[in-house]
């Protein structure tokens, strides 16, 4: 009786150890998976708009097998603070900047060394795959129609709401051919953005996941859907083709429009309050003086 109990106890202890090991393994797997999942999300949100893995160059270089081109320590340092590396006069980094037409990779907030390493691990792992999940955003390559341009304009001006609820471009940006009053002046003029982003592919990719801190914070949770991205790209292609006017004439137009509008409003006021009290004495005296001169 007594012995049996002891055996039971022993069995229990062995079982517990097994359980503990199983749980440990599970947590490690989960956490590793979660860690690589976090890196993938990080890549999707921050890197994908300029980089592919095996999908060719966008604004930034294709990152496939990047570890073979440059050593890991340099890469870790660069990911954490690209500006610092550039300022230090690193030739390789300066060459990259030239290739990217002057664009500097933004430093990401919260980019620790551990995260940079994880990102590099992810890139290594993805580079080994036949087809990485980051070869580039897959958006239709059908030719743009005038209808696309028009819808893009409507989206830009906010007449057509964005399906995920993002704010219209005009709130912060301006562009050519959106009307005399123009758009916001808070953010850059987007008239030539198509050229700046070197064409359709890059721009489409960028718009699918805007990576600058301001745009990201606005569109992270309410991303543009592929159709909207296409329409907007079509619109930006159109604004580039329309030979943009000299910005100073646009400013003059704006001032003239403002003056004209003011005069119109004053005219309406004058009509509405036509019966208002006007000076009595001065008019009386002046009209008499005029009469005497005649």
């Amino acid at each position, binding site marked *: 009786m007594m012995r049996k109990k002891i055996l039971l106890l022993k069995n229990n202890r062995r079982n517990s150890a097994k359980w503990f090991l199983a749980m440990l393994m599970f947590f490690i797997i989960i956490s590793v998976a979660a860690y690589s999942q976090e890196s993938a999300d990080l890549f999707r949100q921050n890197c994908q708009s300029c980089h592919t893995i095996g999908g060719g160059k966008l604004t930034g270089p294709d990152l496939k097998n990047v570890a073979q081109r440059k050593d890991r320590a340099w890469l870790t340092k660069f990911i954490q603070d690209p500006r610092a590396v550039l300022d230090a006069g690193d030739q390789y980094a300066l060459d990259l900047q030239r290739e990217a037409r002057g664009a500097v990779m933004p430093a990401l907030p919260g980019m620790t060394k551990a995260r940079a390493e994880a990102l590099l691990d992810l890139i290594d792992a993805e580079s080994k795959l036949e087809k990485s999940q980051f070869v580039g955003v897959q958006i239709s390559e059908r030719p743009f129609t005038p209808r696309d341009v028009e819808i893009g304009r409507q989206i830009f001006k906010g007449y057509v709401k964005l399906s995920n609820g993002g704010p219209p471009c005009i709130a912060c940006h301006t562009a050519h051919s959106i009307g005399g009053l123009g758009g916001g002046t808070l953010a850059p003029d987007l008239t030539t953005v198509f050229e700046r982003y070197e064409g359709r592919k890059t721009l489409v990719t960028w718009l699918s996941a805007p990576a600058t801190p301001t745009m990201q914070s606005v569109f992270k949770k309410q991303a543009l859907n592929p159709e909207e991205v296409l329409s907007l790209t079509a619109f930006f292609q159109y604004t580039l083709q329309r030979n943009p006017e000299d910005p100073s004439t646009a400013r003059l137009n704006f001032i003239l429009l403002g003056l004209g509008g003011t005069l119109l409003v004053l005219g309406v006021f004058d009509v509405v309050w036509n019966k208002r*009290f006007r000076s009595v*004495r001065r008019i*009386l005296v002046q009209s008499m003086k005029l009469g005497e001169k005649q």
Partner: protein
Amino acid sequence: MNVRSQISMVFHLDKCIGCHTCSIACKNIWTDRKGAEYMWWNNVETKPGTGFPTQWEDQEKYRGGWEKKNGSINLKSISKTRTITDIFHNPSMPSMDDYYEPWTYKYDELFNAPEGSDQPTARPISLVTGEYINVEAGPNWDDDLGGSRVYAENDPNLKNLSEEQQQQLFAIERLVMFYFPRICNHCLNPSCVASCPSGALYKRGEDGIVLIDQKRCRGWRQCIAACPYKKTFYNWSTGKSEKCILCFPRLETGQAPACFHSCVGRIRYLGVLLYDADRIEEVANKPNDELVDAHRSLILNPNDPAVISAALQNGVHESVIEFAQKSPVYKFVKEWKIALPPHIEFRTLPMLYYVPPMSPVMAQQNDDTVQSVSDSFFHDIEQSRVPLQFLANLFGAGHQGKVVYALKKQKAVRTYRRAVTVGDIEMSVAEKMLNEADCTTQEAEAIYQLTSLCTFDDRFVIPPMHREEAIEMMKDPHEHRSEVGFGFVEKPERGL
């Protein structure tokens, strides 16, 4: 019958010599302050002339008073909706230029001028900005300018005079003017009170004096646009509006208001009237030609027992009724009917009445002698220098009847007195004339007495004001006593 008492006034225009003593008395007591320099609670205008502010009588411009619309009367300057739409700009507000920019002189430049080849002068400076100004207008700018092209010819009362009548008025040897002294009329249906969005204006229950509460006034200035007589003024320094207070502190101590007291020509009469407050709305809605009679019918006979008992019931003090029976205003307005309200067509029912002026005798120069052009001693009133229509526009809402009646009676009294004292007119002629003018010899004597031989006490029959009773109506007198007397004088200030 809702009997109330009202301190009322009569100005006898035939006696006014245009000396402006009243204006100065008032200015010295009440408006010699910063922000009030341009105000003239009492002013004396020359008629024909444009007055102060310029052309105040033209309500097409100033939009004061009431207008009859769809069977009821409404304020011309404002309505409930327009209070909102015009909140940032009142389209009927006169500017300071329509009054005048008050000024003084830089006497320093005169007294301390260095020796030089030119006469030193004291240049005028604005009392508002303190900067040098060119004086272009004043409160009496057209004083005595009966025939002036700018002012007299633009008198709004000339509006329905024929071309011929207008030319007569300005023709050589017919050129004429008379004086028109004005204070607040303390109206029965005051448009200033009706227009105030803050409820700062009120008409005192016991004596009908219209006042602006300086604590409640928020400076909306609606009263300034709404008063057709332009007798409320905005004080730009305190941010409050002000008006004639009929010197109520003087009245409460048994003294006549300063302008009355100082009047050189003794043209001013003051007394209490009893009126029926229930009929005010009905009377204010009457058509123009009935207004003068209707307004007169509001005034009740203080000797009528029914009126007396109703008055007593309504809390009018016995002594006030007693003084109402002696009131010179009652005699002029109600018994003799020779005093008329100014511009009754504004429908505010003014309680200041004017005895219309007889024009001066018309004379012609033949060689070295000046002769009267009329055959009779006093010229025919239809032939008077001031066209009747002009006086009718001022005192009869455009209708001559009441003015003719008042002038005829005055002429008859004069003729009668000429017959009595000089005797170069037959008494029978004089009596016939009195008869035609609806006047008896007793009445003529009474008119003569009160017009020519009146003493201080005849002119100003000031009732005991009974402030204590008025206070009792509003609050506990013991409580009131603890709140007045020695204390702090609070100056009017902008804001709440």
